[in-house]
């Protein structure tokens, strides 16, 4: 029998959003990139922070922030060290 490796990331798809997307007006290619650090590394989080820092934040909580950006979550690829969100637009 096969069992997934513990390191294998896990994918969740948000079918509700992914079903009706239209990219007709997404004309501008160049992206904007924002990177915000709250500690120098994953192993040096402040004592007050949750043990897994931002990775403890549920994906639903990010939705309100992403609404302000005009993006919606299409799917999430979860792994031990990083969660990768694929977004609309």
């Amino acid at each position, binding site marked *: 029998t096969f069992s997934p*490796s513990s*390191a*294998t*990331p896990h994918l969740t*798809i948000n079918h509700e959003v*992914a079903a009706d*997307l*239209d*990219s*007709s007006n*997404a*004309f*501008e*290619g*160049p*992206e*904007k*990139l*924002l*990177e*915000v*650090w*709250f*500690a*120098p*590394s*994953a*192993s*040096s*989080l*402040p*004592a*007050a*922070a*949750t*043990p*897994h*820092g*931002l*990775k403890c*934040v549920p994906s639903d909580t*990010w939705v*309100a*922030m992403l609404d*302000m*950006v*005009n*993006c919606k979550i299409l*799917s999430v*690829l979860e*792994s*031990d*060290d*990083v*969660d*990768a*969100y*694929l*977004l609309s*637009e």
Partner: protein
Amino acid sequence: SSMFVFPHKLILKTCGTTTLLLGLQRLLHIAAVHAGFPFHNAKSLDDIRAAATPYRVFYSRKNFLFPDKQKGPHRSWKQEVKYLDDTLEGGGSAYMVGKMNRDHWYLYITSPNQTLTPPLTPDSEPNCQPTPATTISSNGGSSAGGSYSQNDETLEILMTDLDPENAKQFFLSHASAVASDKLTVEAKNARKNAQESLGCLSGTPDELGVFGHCEGIDDESDNRVDGAKGTEIEELTTEGHALGSVISEHCGLNDVYPTSVYPDAKVDAYLFSPCGFSANGVIPAPPNAEGQKPGATHYFTVHVTPESGFSYASFETNVPGGQNGRTTAEIIEHVVNIFRPGRFSVTLFEAKGQSANPYSLSDGTFKSLSMQRLVDPVRGYRRMDRIVHDFEDYDLVFRFYERE
């Protein structure tokens, strides 16, 4: 667009006319309230203005093709810088890299916040329940105790004027045809395998002899299978994630970090309708000889706007180049060959002190590892620009290429 959430940082990369910076204040608030990072600008977390104090911030983008169509502070670099300065209460530095009249690149960067040098979080903490957030004292935090991240580097390739034949792959009509062909081949192979496992061989009746008749694979069951397959084919040739997966494989993106080298790598891709493509890859460190995972998980992300006139593709990764995996030069050449752009820029942003053996120059100075990595030529392209920025704790190498 894509977002990457690590325990200590968040990366948000957005396309089109998104209003990325308008989410910054909420992001800082979430980091304080839900992740417990220290804040300084409010008395309690009940205050909606409460915002976690970032350790450092980077904001970057290429020059926009249609800046007047952008919204919010994104209509000009000057407005974006003002917005960042206001939100982050100053302290940032803004740069423009490259030729002003061509494909230049902008960067806003803050210095590391020396008040945020906390002790390590105990490994024994059992769950994700936030501990009460604290404010930062005016005389700063405790002394430095954290271990700094290893192999902190980011490679970004920004490509414009994609070859029309290569760009075609990222249109729904083309992708559906590829998916349909692929499924047809798979269905034929599956049927052949089923026939062979039941003792049915292909060939003329004379050639087949006693094995010419195959029970269990009659016309009726074929029709039932074909009906189910038809529905499956329709879904797999129209649904964005299914098509994204097919195109990732077809265009060669899955081979940038092949599973033969990175066995736990996983790619999540989406093909938009009528065109456009996004993909995120999560790349756990390859196991060492003892089968142990020696390092952290990294990521890559790709975004493609294939329409002629403003075709564009970006590739970004923080997977360390070299070591046991593919070199930076190999990655660049592989990615460029997927899109065959008319011109592209490469930026490598690398934390200082990463190189164990800095390259010694004849004048007695040293070249950083990032400078060594970007010396290789890219076949079929002429290098037009090479700019090196020596930041406080990072080296930035920017190169610009045009097709020969």
